[in-house]
């Protein structure tokens, strides 16, 4: 199923050569040459067969730059990966992609907004992200929860899922979407792989939404690559003084699209978004009163809401829980709530 040249490339990648940034004609012509420079083991026919068998057993499909399945958008960046190790539906590589990234330390409110917007994006796009805690997790879960397609780009081989606590998420990405890595399966994660990985996220996508970023967040690297590759950059706005929003605000100052909701992104891309008809929410009197106060304040403290309504606080607890169940508000911790 792989051509001879492709196998050469895979062997090259498996033996530690990256083949990054080499042009396709060169790759084809010089595949033999390349192997000669990395001679240990890759010549051996038996070893080649073993290596391919190993990949197959692990359920890994390789998409090389010589393959027709290789996405054009990614091929056009400065140093496209020579081989993409894939688990899942490789057809998604050629779909319209949009990346949603952010830092691991993201405010609960931003996480909720991230999950929501990722779900909406996934109606049109394949949502691309990493696999980190925080924003990445929210984006993937939001899109998967809405029944959309996702691509998760890892900074390690598939033998090392990082962070470990997201193994389950990785499995569902591989089942319902696609997990991608440019590293051979036995590569453990290294801190310097993450920024390099970000170019793939940027390269695959039509645009990137940065949901949160501190001053030195990796999400900013993704945004920089996107700008470099001529893709649109969108960012959530933050009020001054929030550490996890400084990077986002800096991006907006530099010209990123200020993004409050899905409409801002679709407008930027020149697309129409059919706002789904607001579902009838079926709220009782208490619930609507509480929701109104929380919406108007943005962020509300439970006893303060009760005071406004002139009721003992425990009488509004049922309403607050009901609103959480209906996914209209989220718990920020410390008995504070915010509308989604």
């Amino acid at each position, binding site marked *: 199923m792989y051509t001879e040249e492709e196998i050469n490339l895979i062997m090259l990648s498996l033996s530690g050569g990256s083949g990054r940034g080499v042009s396709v004609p060169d790759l084809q012509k010089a595949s033999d040459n390349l192997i000669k420079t990395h001679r240990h083991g890759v010549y051996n026919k038996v070893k080649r067969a073993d290596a391919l068998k190993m990949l197959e057993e692990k359920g890994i499909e390789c998409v090389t730059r010589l393959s027709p399945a290789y996405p054009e958008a990614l091929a056009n960046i400065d140093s496209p990966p020579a081989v993409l190790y894939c688990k899942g539906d490789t057809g998604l590589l050629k779909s319209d992609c949009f990346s949603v990234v952010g830092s691991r*330390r993201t405010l609960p409110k931003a996480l909720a907004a991230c999950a929501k917007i990722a779900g909406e994006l996934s109606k049109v796009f394949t949502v691309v992200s990493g696999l980190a805690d925080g924003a990445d997790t929210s984006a993937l879960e939001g899109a998967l929860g809405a029944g959309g397609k996702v691509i998760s780009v890892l900074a390690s081989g598939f033998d090392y899922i990082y962070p470990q606590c997201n193994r389950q998420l990785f499995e569902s990405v591989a089942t319902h979407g696609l997990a991608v890595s440019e590293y051979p399966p036995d590569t453990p994660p290294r801190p310097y792989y993450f920024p390099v990985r970000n170019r793939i996220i940027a390269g695959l996508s039509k645009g990137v939404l940065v949901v949160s970023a501190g001053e030195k967040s990796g999400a900013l690297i993704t945004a920089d690559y996107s700008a470099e590759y001529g893709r649109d950059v969108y960012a959530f706005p933050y009020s001054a003084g929030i550490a996890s929003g400084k990077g986002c605000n800096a991006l907006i100052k530099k010209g990123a699209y200020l993004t409050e909701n899905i409409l801002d992104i679709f407008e930027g891309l020149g697309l129409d978004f059919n706002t789904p008809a607001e579902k009838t929410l079926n709220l009782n009197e208490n619930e609507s009163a509480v929701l109104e106060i929380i919406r108007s304040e943005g962020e509300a403290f439970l006893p303060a809401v009760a005071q406004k309504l002139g009721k003992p606080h425990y009488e509004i607890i*049922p309403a607050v829980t009901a609103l959480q169940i209906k*996914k209209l508000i989220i718990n*920020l911790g410390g008995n*504070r709530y915010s509308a989604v």
Partner: protein
Amino acid sequence: MFSRITSFALNGLEGVPVEVETDINKGMVSYDLVGLPDAAVKESKERVRSAIKNSALDFPINKVTINLAPADLKKEGSHFDLPLAISILKASGQILADTDGIVILGELALDGSLRPVSGILPILISARDKGFKKFIVPAGNANEAGYIEGITVYAPSDLKQAVAVIAGESSSPVVPKTFASARGRQSYGYDMSLVKGQKVAKRAVEIAVAGGHNILLAGPPGTGKTLLARCIPTIMPDLTFDEALEVTKIHSVAGELSEDGIVSLRPFRTPHHTATTVSLCGGGSVKIRPGEISKAHKGVLFMDELPEYSRSALESLRQPLEDKVITVTRAGGAITFPADFILCASMNPCPCGNYGSAYLQCTCTPAQIHRYRNRVSGPLLDRIDLQVEVDGVMYDDLVSEDAEEPSATVKERIEKAREIQRERFKEDGISVNAEMGEKHIKKYCRLTRESEDVLKSAFESLRLSARARSRIIKVARTIADLDYSAEISPAHILEAVSYRGGAV
């Protein structure tokens, strides 16, 4: 000459009769003590000798043999000094009066005065139940002994007086005490009205006490979790006399009784997080002593910074939380101590403590938070019905002049809710909602279709674990009881869901 005196040994919370037999014979001067005495009893020889001499009495210069019967039971503690001394005096003819049926207990000082000893109350109660009526205990234990009805207790302050009591020369027994007077003297020193703000947590504490549920308070440091916990005993129903005796027994064995001689307030125990499993559950190499969970019997066990306790200490709580007793098994035998307490635990929401704070930035990674919370195992959390978040206190609340509700008002509501539960569980052998098992839940917590729907949607939407279900229903039952409602309404279910924990 030969004499026999009755004393008691302590086995857990039970008294066991011990006969002190002394035989004085002609022969080489010696002093032999047999019958499995422990170190403290063996050492009594020197105390007894000096005390007798310093009380202007004679220590026999003969061959003295003392036996503690039954010979196969280990005798521990210093309270055998006085019976040994009396027995020697009787055998040497210095006491002529009859000593049958008198139980003698007490530790001697070298000058002959009597020191108070631990475990008097459980021994006296056991002895009374075995038919003994007359007792001699140290003056320092008079208060403790005064609460037991149907016995005559003499409390001499030294050996000479003890001899006089036996001779019938001085005979004014201890005046019986009433429980009400002790209760009037003791107070908690805390009150709910001291806790400013924290409305959500206060309500949760009220529900916890009303239904006997365990509770976990999660919140940033310095927000009043400890103060709130200290107020829990103040809203619990008063101890009845029988309960108080039960608690006093345990504290007496542990040697922690106050001057008053009885525990009339609900205990509040705060073992430090370095506490070992043995100190929590009870144990000891020779004498098995009650641990913190037994000392918290009928009261509150407060575990501050729950994740900091060692894993084995936390896991050891699981069985007593379920059974309300702890059985400590050692090579020397097994002893069961009661351990019926409300567990109140507190923890920070994350290692740095600022997660969820409105003012401070949390600096923990999600993985760190995950690891911190995982230190408390699922099975233990399953036994904690209410898990609530404490507010980061607002300045406005701290300075506000609004009168906070005093403990007495809250207690009234709780007593009513407990009354409803007592009535409900009359035939089930339990007394509060928290003790309900699956069969009780089926019997008493039928949900209306509406409530069932609400619970179902909560499970789907909030991804609750199946284990949370019975916890939520039990708490909802208590909330309904506080509301004097026979039926569990959707609002009760929703409020109970809000205390499910894991919200952050």
